């Protein structure tokens, strides 16, 4: 008989028993037929039960049979306590699901290796620098001439690759009217061979496709784009698209699963770096990351030193060509920027940088919620074990081993965890993509691969086992070490169980406090950040990024503005180089009086006349631009500018110098405008200079422009309703122009608080879950302890104790635990400061209100949860209780 038939026998145990009996009976019959005395024949078998037991043990794997019995028994126990089991599965499932979901996100953004050869040997270069406001930051963008040099310097130890940022571009497979968007990355020729990417169709780019600037109009598309855009049409090879002025031919499709190197963005099109032809010999244009794959046996440090020396050498030469007057320490900083090699196994993206910390904190929050749920279930199991202590004692008395009892209780826990895991997986399957969808800056929503593969499965299984161990082992050990004598007598230490439960309550409160504290901080951050004044009217404004075929006279731009103003529903329109808070920026040196430039560069923005009015930025003095105003002759500055450079005096009539085409020019201030936000919500409003949209060329003529952003103020509440009309109106006015992108100003503003909104919403959600779980836990423990002390309370009341005494007696201990938990949570919360501070705005972890709020919420919830059991306690009727015993 095989092992399988033995396992199979488990499920036909009755038949096995029957056959054993039948065989013995036939033996006895035979004996009797041969003249044996019937009684004696029967007696020779001894106890039939024992014989049966023995033969049965041979026929089935004993432990497995026991396990089957335990599972059945455990299942019956759970079904018997439907409500509690259901609540346990639900809360545990929610917590497990949230954890799995968080893992899926963390894995997809930070951990999952790129589908390339030996991802662990991939690195990318970063250097320390200071941002425009002298704050330390890390940079990772490089210029092509430097890359060329570095590639040669390190070629024996590492293969260097230039991989540009994934950018959204306009391209068309037909006429200009059919423009569409796609994400494009420039890659150096060695990228595909070094990463070991194979083609799914056609060919990939090789070093031969990356030799001469502008000479390799070829592109490889990703499998995802091939599927989405072309339905995997094999005829796509050889098709051409136009992007800008280049006509590019598709030569191949990269293999399935490879979507570029930027986690959070899926690249559609890969083009040789040489096709960014204007940037190849420009030493001041940084536009890609440098990736490297170390040769086997090379230490990163070796390569880093070599590259660092080469960069310093290169930059020292480069700064010699810079215009004089830059501060010396800034030059030194640039030349000697500390370089480091960072692992790039999981890809490199801005999303990772932005969301790393947030995701880890969310992971911690959901882990805490899971611990709270575990504590609940542990308490539930302990309480149940208490009511079953006599059953356990009975089992011990009739010979059950300690291990069997342990197994009995653990199996029940495992069943709970299993059911919760199933529920949790469903929750994670639904919720992880939902969270990704919330990371949706206009026009650039995060796209992540979220496969439910073995990594996720392994995580869920590990989590389920861990959870079972967490909430199952303590009650199981307690149940299995039961002493029959004392248990049947009523227990020798009835308080031991309660101590365990109270300890768990303290832990729950501590975790709950931390979760609430973090949620409070994030909600306050979001609230404060999104209520920061922008200085301009956000609603009812539509921004139209407009491009022209070839540079067009500003008069044509003006013509379009005039036409748009006549569209029904449009209040006013104007043009600027880009919308406020769109992420673009232009900063330039200025000189107020002396020969050295100011150390901090103000923002510049080119705007047409009527722009201030369209944006509802009030003028405090002077006048708005008129059509004849020309950059760099006149400018309008904001309050911050006046405060910074003119002691807050009205600066109209004053002047400062700027630099255009390396010539110093004097600019007259003709207007003084209210502060308006240029970049993001976090930084204070910076000095800003508005200059006329019209500018002058070296020859003295008006400069033609091929791009700009038209801003339109609408009469209606919903500016988007005009989007399609305006999109058509632009090319119909002048066919050289078309709208490449339309976004509302509101979207542009809100994109700066997406992360904060996400953190606030999710942490608030989990804070509520944590509170509900902790309250249920407290209610359960209080109810249990009142039930357990019913006799004691009855006696006290019979002896004259007042309701007040009883209530305080029942509550003191638990509320002591609450205090202990809250103080532990407080310590934990304050300790999280260092890690969390950079995500906050306008709040500190040491704010008294931030600490008081969770404490207040939790104590209120605790009071509500404790009320029913306490009421039950004071209503105990001594006569009834004592008679019942």
């Amino acid at each position, binding site marked *: *008989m095989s092992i399988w038939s*033995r396992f199979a026998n488990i499920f036909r145990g009755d038949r096995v028993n029957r*056959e054993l009996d*039948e*065989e*013995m*009976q*036939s*033996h006895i*019959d*035979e*004996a009797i037929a041969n003249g044996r005395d019937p009684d004696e024949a029967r007696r*020779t*078998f*001894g106890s039939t039960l024992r*014989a049966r037991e*023995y*033969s049965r*043990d*041979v*026929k089935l794997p004993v432990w497995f049979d026991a396990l089957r019995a335990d599972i059945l028994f455990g299942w019956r126990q759970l079904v018997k306590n439907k409500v509690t089991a259901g609540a346990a599965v639900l809360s545990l499932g929610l917590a497990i699901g949230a954890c799995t979901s968080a893992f899926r996100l963390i894995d997809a953004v930070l951990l999952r290796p790129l589908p390339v050869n030996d991802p662990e040997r991939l690195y990318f270069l970063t250097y320390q620098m200071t941002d425009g406001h002298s704050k330390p930051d890390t940079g990772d963008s490089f210029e092509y001439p430097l890359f060329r040099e570095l590639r040669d310097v390190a070629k024996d130890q590492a293969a260097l690759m230039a991989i540009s940022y994934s950018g959204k571009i306009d391209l068309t497979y037909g006429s200009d009217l059919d423009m569409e968007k796609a994400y494009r990355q420039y890659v150096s020729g060695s990228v595909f061979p070094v990463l070991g990417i194979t083609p799914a169709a056609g060919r990939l780019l090789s070093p031969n496709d990356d030799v001469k600037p502008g000479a390799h109009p070829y592109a490889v598309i990703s499998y995802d784009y091939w599927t989405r855009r072309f339905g995997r049409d094999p005829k796509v090879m050889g098709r051409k698209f136009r992007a800008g002025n280049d006509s590019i031919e598709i030569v191949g499709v990269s293999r399935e699963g490879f979507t570029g190197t930027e986690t959070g963005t899926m690249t559609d099109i890969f083009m040789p770096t040489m096709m960014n032809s204007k940037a190849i010999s420009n030493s001041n244009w940084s536009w890609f990351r440098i990736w490297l794959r170390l040769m086997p046996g090379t230490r990163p440090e070796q390569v880093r030193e070599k590259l660092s020396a080469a960069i310093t050498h290169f930059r020292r030469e480069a700064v010699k060509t810079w215009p004089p007057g830059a501060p010396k320490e800034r030059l030194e900083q640039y030349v000697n920027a500390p370089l480091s090699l960072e692992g790039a196994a999981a890809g490199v993206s801005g999303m990772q940088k932005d969301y790393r910390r947030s995701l880890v904190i969310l992971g911690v929050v959901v882990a805490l919620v899971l611990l709270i749920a575990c504590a609940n279930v542990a308490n539930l199991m302990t309480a149940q074990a208490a009511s079953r202590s006599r059953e356990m004692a009975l089992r011990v008395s009739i010979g059950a081993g300690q291990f069997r009892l342990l197994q009995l209780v653990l199996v029940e826990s495992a069943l709970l965890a299993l059911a919760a895991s199933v529920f949790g997986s469903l929750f994670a399957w639904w919720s992880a993509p939902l969270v990704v969808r919330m990371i949706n800056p206009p026009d650039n929503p995060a796209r992540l691969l979220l496969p439910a593969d073995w990594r996720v499965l392994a995580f869920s299984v590990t989590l389920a086992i861990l959870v079972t161990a967490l909430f199952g082992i303590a009650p199981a050990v307690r149940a299995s070490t039961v002493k029959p004598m004392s248990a049947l007598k009523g227990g020798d230490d009835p308080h031991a169980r309660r101590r365990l439960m109270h300890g768990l309550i303290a832990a729950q409160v501590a975790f709950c406090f931390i979760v609430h504290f973090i949620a409070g901080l994030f909600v306050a951050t979001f609230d404060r950040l999104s209520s920061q004044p922008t200085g301009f009217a956000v609603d009812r404004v539509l921004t139209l990024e407009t491009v022209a075929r070839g540079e067009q006279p500003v008069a044509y731009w003006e013509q379009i503005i005039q036409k748009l103003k006549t569209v029904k529903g449009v209040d006013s329109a104007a043009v600027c180089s880009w919308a406020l808070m769109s992420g673009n920026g232009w900063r330039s040196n200025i000189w107020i009086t002396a020969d050295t430039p100011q150390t901090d560069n103000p923002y510049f923005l080119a705007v047409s006349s009527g722009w201030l009015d369209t944006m509802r930025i009030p003028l405090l003095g002077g006048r708005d631009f008129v059509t004849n105003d020309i950059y760099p002759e006149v400018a309008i500055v904001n309050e911050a500018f006046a405060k910074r450079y003119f002691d807050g005096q009205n600066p109209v009539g004053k002047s400062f110098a700027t630099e255009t085409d390396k010539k110093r020019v004097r600019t007259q201030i003709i207007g003084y405008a209210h502060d308006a936000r240029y970049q993001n919500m976090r930084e204070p409003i910076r000095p800003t200079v508005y200059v006329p949209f019209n500018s002058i060329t070296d020859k003295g003529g008006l400069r033609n422009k091929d791009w700009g952003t038209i801003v339109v103020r609408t009469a209606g509440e919903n500016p988007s309703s005009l989007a399609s009309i305006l999109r058509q109106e632009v090319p119909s006015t002048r066919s050289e122009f078309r709208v490449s992108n339309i976004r509302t100003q509101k979207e542009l503003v809100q994109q700066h608080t997406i992360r904060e909104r996400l953190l606030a919403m999710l942490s608030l959600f989990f804070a509520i879950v944590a509170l509900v779980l902790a309250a249920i836990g407290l209610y359960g423990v209080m109810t249990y302890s009142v039930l357990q002390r019913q006799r004691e309370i009855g006696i006290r009341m019979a002896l004259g104790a007042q309701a007040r005494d009883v209530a305080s007696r029942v509550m003191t201990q638990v509320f002591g635990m609450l205090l202990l938990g809250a103080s532990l949570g407080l310590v934990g919360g304050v300790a999280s400061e260092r890690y969390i501070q950079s995500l906050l705005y306008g709040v500190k972890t040491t704010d008294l209100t931030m600490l008081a709020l969770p404490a207040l919420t939790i104590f209120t919830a605790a009071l509500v949860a404790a009320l029913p059991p306490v009421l039950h306690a004071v209503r105990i009727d001594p006569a009834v209780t004592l008679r019942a015993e």
Partner: protein
Amino acid sequence: MRRTDSLQGSIDLLVLKILSRRPHLHGYAIMNAIEEISGEVLQVEEGSLYPALHRIEEAGWIKAQWVTKDTGRRARTYEITAAGRKQLSTEESRWRAVTDAIGRVLRMA
């Protein structure tokens, strides 16, 4: 849980040997055969025969079959398998080695 039986080793050997000569015997017949051939010297008890049969069956050395007898009752008959024959020859040679060894000790001591 299971008591070891001093006769256990030999019971396996006897059962296998009997079944190798006479296939399709039921438990009672095996018991009788052992008693008969050994001239009533070896007595097998029912209480240890059946567990032994089931254990040997579990090991795959014999296989069982239900047959309906003339009386209409079913009986479980056993026959030896190929694996059982192999086991039988190992057991036999081991038994011989042991008895030889014991014989030598008895002669020499």
